[in-house]
């Protein structure tokens, strides 16, 4: 073997290729290469571009001046931006909690119905996605407006005397966000609830657990992986969301998503927008890592 590789002769070159072909590492690399190429162009290169941009400066006319500096990041430490960031975190967290509160009973109920009905319910949950997102948000605006459906209805039945001011408040943003992200919570929750064997609950009852104890000690922990997966699917896009606050929050509500969008499209300050994106990315990463570690996500996923 050693003699073969030391001299570069036609035969040894041939055997090098053959050895590459037989090496399991090379094989593995070859097998996932389509994925790698895909990731390179859709993830790695754009990300590098954003990282690069975030260290540049805006020119007088919105052009990019290629001078490495940290100005964008120091500017982000301004209380104004920190407040926006904190507010975004809170909104995303509340959205996640909201989708859990509404999505859990829903997923639980679907997982309990006979199998044939389940697919109908799951289908119904996905149906709204066939309509454009912006149109669905406008539908919500119609409902929540001062003279909208909700207020007219509540006024008519005499539940309230004056119309409620919901639209263009943080509450409206929250309603819109919870609505938008609910399916992302319901589907993973349903998957993990549906996987729980009925025998597990029978065993709990057999050992003396009343229904609420069986739920707390068996169903809830076993559905945790779904809840975590759902939280990640909701929290991350909720952090970057700008359409809902734009349309339903009025001018008062600005989230990081709006900030970034404005920097790129309105202020034409790409480097600052890139820096804000990096901050958002890092925050989200930290949050996700913390959350999954705490809940022992890796292990539970293997169930």
């Amino acid at each position, binding site marked *: 073997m050693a003699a073969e590789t030391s001299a570069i002769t036609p035969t040894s070159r041939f055997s090098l290729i053959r050895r590459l072909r037989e090496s399991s590492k090379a094989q593995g690399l070859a097998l996932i290469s389509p994925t790698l190429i895909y990731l390179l162009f859709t993830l790695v290169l754009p990300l590098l571009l954003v990282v690069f941009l975030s260290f540049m400066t805006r020119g007088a006319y919105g052009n990019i001046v290629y001078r490495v500096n940290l100005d964008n990041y120091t500017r982000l430490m301004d209380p104004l931006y920190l407040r926006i960031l904190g507010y975004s975190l809170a909104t995303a967290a509340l959205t996640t909690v909201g989708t859990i509160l509404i999505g859990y009973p829903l997923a639980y109920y679907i997982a309990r119905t006979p199998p044939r009905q389940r697919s109908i319910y799951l289908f119904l949950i996905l149906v709204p996605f066939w309509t454009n997102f912006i149109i669905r948000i406008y539908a919500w605006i119609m409902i929540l407006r001062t003279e909208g459906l909700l207020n007219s209805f509540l006024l008519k039945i005499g539940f309230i005397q004056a119309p409620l001011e919901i639209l263009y408040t943080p509450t409206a943003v929250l309603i819109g966000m919870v609505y938008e992200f609910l399916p992302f919570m319901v589907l993973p929750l349903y998957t993990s609830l549906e996987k729980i*064997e009925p*025998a*597990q609950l*029978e*065993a*709990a*009852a*057999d*050992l*003396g*657990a*009343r229904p609420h*104890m069986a739920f707390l*000690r*068996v169903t809830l*922990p*076993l559905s945790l992986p779904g809840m975590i997966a759902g939280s990640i699917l909701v929290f991350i896009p909720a952090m970057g969301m700008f359409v809902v606050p734009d349309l339903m929050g009025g001018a008062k509500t600005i989230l990081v998503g709006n900030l970034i969008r404005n920097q790129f499209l309105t202020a034409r300050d790409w480097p600052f927008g890139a820096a804000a994106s990096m901050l958002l990315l890092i925050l989200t990463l930290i949050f996700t890592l913390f959350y999954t570690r705490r809940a022992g996500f890796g292990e*539970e996923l293997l*169930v």
Partner: protein
Amino acid sequence: MSQFAVELRDVVKRFPNPAGGEITAVNHATLQINHGEFFSLLGPSGCGKTTSLRMVAGFEWPTSGEIFIDGKPMGRTPPFLRPVNTVFQSYALFQHMTIFQNVAFGLEMERVSRQEIQRRVEAALEMVQLSGMGSRKPRQLSGGQQQRVALARALVKRPAVLLLDEPLGALDLKLRKEMQLELKALQEQVGITFIYVTHDQEEALTMSDRIAVMNQGNVLQIGAPVEIYERPNCRFVADFIGETNFLFGKVKAIDPDFVTVSLRGSERELLGIPLGKFHPGQEVVVSIRPEKMRLFDDTPLKLGVSPNQPNCFPIRIIHTMYIGSDTRIVIDFGSGVQLNVWEQNHLSTLDALAYYAPGQELWVTMRPENVLILPEEE
């Protein structure tokens, strides 16, 4: 303490059939199980064993009839209020809890104190030889170990009755045999009533104090293993438990202890014991177990036994199989009837004829009490 640990009184359970109509899973079952008894429910797949057990546990409610546990009618009492615990066929261990937490779960539900839980869980784990495994997760145990955890989890509650649904079904044969012995020893040690579901007749025979044989939702016979094997009350039980030969015929004569049956399509007559009520001319089934017949060459004559005595017939050997402890022989009983006969190999010899050979002409005899006369069923 009431007379019976568990009683099923005329219990019926019907399920709606997805294809329309109803399935009768349990059909007018009446059972009385004594305190401290090892009681088995035995029968083929789908005969309603699991359904019966689940009704005792409280997972299903009878369509009609009543179940009593320690004399108290259970009605629709939910499982968490019944003084019974179950060992599930699939074990149903809580995958998200450690072994210790699994076993402690039932005690926590009873609000037993921390120290007491600690003590009792450790004792339970020791009883099933799993000390030191408390911090593992169920997935980190072998099938046999998981089975023991399921057992400890149920026994730690000190139930009045332990229900076991084919608890050894998932284990390989060797482990199964070991666990059978352990389980039986454990039951004697703790003195708890066991209701044990199995479709393995050998398992039921070796472990049980009494067995109920079920088929198609009906309880056919209840009795000690020896009764079930030696005196089955119907053709199904005789067939399901152990091996047997069936012959068919008509009752010819009845005297106080024995019945004479003339065999169908032959001149031969068999003298046997009646298991049921018979009248002359009635169609019957005759069951004779293979180990209860004896083969002779011409020795019955030498022994002074007349070949005309009852149950003594000339036969011809068709086929033999030497399996070490026994020789299994198929004999031609005449008029196209073949019987299986098992002869124990009492003598150690290399003489081939001692183990019989096809074509040999011999005599078969059987004692009348080994010839069981059963009613013919439609």
